[in-house]
């Protein structure tokens, strides 16, 4: 069975604005992600993990290299195969929650039975009571839950998530992480999840891709052998700490490099 996603030597160069030098965000990244696998992209800020996610999802075209989803080369968004969940809620503020689902499913050209579909997705995250609310009436945690529900409702084989829980408090994060694990076990979706939280990565992922500081390269790929759905008790096991420590050692130097680079940039800037 072909892998769900193949990333083949992808590099990304961003043009410098207003005389700034060009920036190499990703340097020859290659990955293979299997069907039903939960992969975490873990790395320091600015290492290009969000860029890589956007490239996989067809929102950005890479400067060089190719991405293949299933058997199709990626040349643009794939609304039927790939769904995004962003860090901030991308619910349209002028529509109610339910109307948002209708519009998203309409984009996907799925008009029949959209209401039941939407309500089912909302129920799976416990938000069915808020279908008639406007986003501004909801808390950040609730909005992100609904964001997630919408990603699920789109019924794609692949879910790309860019630090979806970063703006949430610890408890909500844990709960939603659990929900995600259950979802994966039940639906067999392929999930690519960007984070810079070590615990989150180890808790959720089957495979952790540790990236270097900018320009981003794959530093190491670590497997986490624990079946989904994972119980919160997994965090108490020694295996969890081992993997976590392993990731920390790999990351520590990259974080240091990133911080030093930031200091350099700050000192070099004319005041």
């Amino acid at each position, binding site marked *: 069975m072909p892998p769900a996603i193949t990333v083949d030597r992808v590099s990304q160069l961003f043009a410098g604005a207003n005389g700034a030098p060009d920036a190499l965000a990703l340097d020859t990244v290659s990955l293979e992600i299997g069907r039903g696998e939960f992969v975490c992209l873990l790395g320091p800020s600015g290492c290009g993990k969000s860029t890589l996610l956007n490239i996989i999802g067809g*929102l950005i075209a890479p400067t060089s290299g190719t991405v293949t989803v299933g058997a199709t080369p990626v040349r643009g*968004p794939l609304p039927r195969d790939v769904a995004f969940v962003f860090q901030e809620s991308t619910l349209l503020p002028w529509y109610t929650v339910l109307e948002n689902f209708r519009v998203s499913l309409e984009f996907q050209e799925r008009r029949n039975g959209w209401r039941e579909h939407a309500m089912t997705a909302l129920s799976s995250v416990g938000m069915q009571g808020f279908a008639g609310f*406007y986003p501004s009436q909801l808390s950040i945690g609730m909005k992100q839950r609904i964001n997630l529900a919408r990603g699920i409702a789109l019924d794609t084989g692949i879910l790309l998530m860019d630090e979806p829980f970063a703006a949430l408090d610890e408890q909500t994060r844990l709960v939603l992480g659990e929900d995600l694990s259950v979802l994966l076990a039940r639906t067999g979706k392929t999930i690519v999840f960007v984070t810079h939280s070590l615990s989150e990565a180890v808790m959720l992922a089957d495979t952790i891709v540790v990236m270097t500081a900018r320009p981003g390269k794959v530093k190491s790929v670590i497997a986490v052998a624990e079946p989904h759905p994972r119980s919160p008790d997994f965090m108490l096991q020694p295996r969890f700490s081992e993997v976590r420590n392993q990731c920390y050692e790999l990351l520590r130097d990259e974080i240091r490099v990133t911080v030093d680079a930031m200091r350099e940039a700050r000192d070099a800037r004319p005041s």
Partner: protein
Amino acid sequence: MQSVAAKPPSAAAIRWWTIAGLVLLWEAAARLLGDPAFVAPPSLVLRTLPELLGDPKVVAALGTALLEIVTAFILAVIAGAIVGIAIGLTTLGRRTFYPFVLLLFGLPQVVVLPLVILIFGLGPASRIAFGFTHGVLPIMVTTITGMRSVSPLLISSARSQGATQAQMLRHIIFPTMIATVFTGLRLAMSLTLLGVVLAELFVSTNGIGNYTQIFAETFKPGKLYGLILVLAVTAVALNEIVALVEARFSRWKQS
């Protein structure tokens, strides 16, 4: 532990007591110090109101002014929104034309009032034109700046869901534009009011300007004050209506 002092007066109480105090001061000062040819106490103003509003010609002048304001406002909103959207749609358009708009917005339009009267005559047309030029600019400014606020994240999200350009226009760009036009609505009403009132007062041969002159020259301060009061109340009412309309359309913004 909270101190057991007397509860401080509420903001609303302070406000209304101050207003009441000022009105009383006006009454007293007008009666004791004011020349009755020029100054009218509030009691006199209220007493002459029925007589003022009973005069059909005065009412006609008020009605014409109201019509001019509403017409100028509607024209300003439509024209301002269309031009503002056209300018703000592209980065080139915005960079090229927004500076012109801002420049015009900062000018004292009153200096072209005599010219507007020359061109449009002494009737309602000049009042509508002058109100229009006042109200159209804030709509353009808020629309142009608002177009920039189309969230790139929402666009990315819609793209990833397979939205076409037309769908993005309808579900993201258009609602953003409408929202920004609405933020300029209240200011546009204030300024339209200003333009129409200026033009009305300038032309003293008919309309409101005629009656302010008559009441002043025949030493009827009660009627003069009364006329102004009616207009001021109308202005407040119009502002409130616009605010209500804006609130009704911005229900999703509450937080």
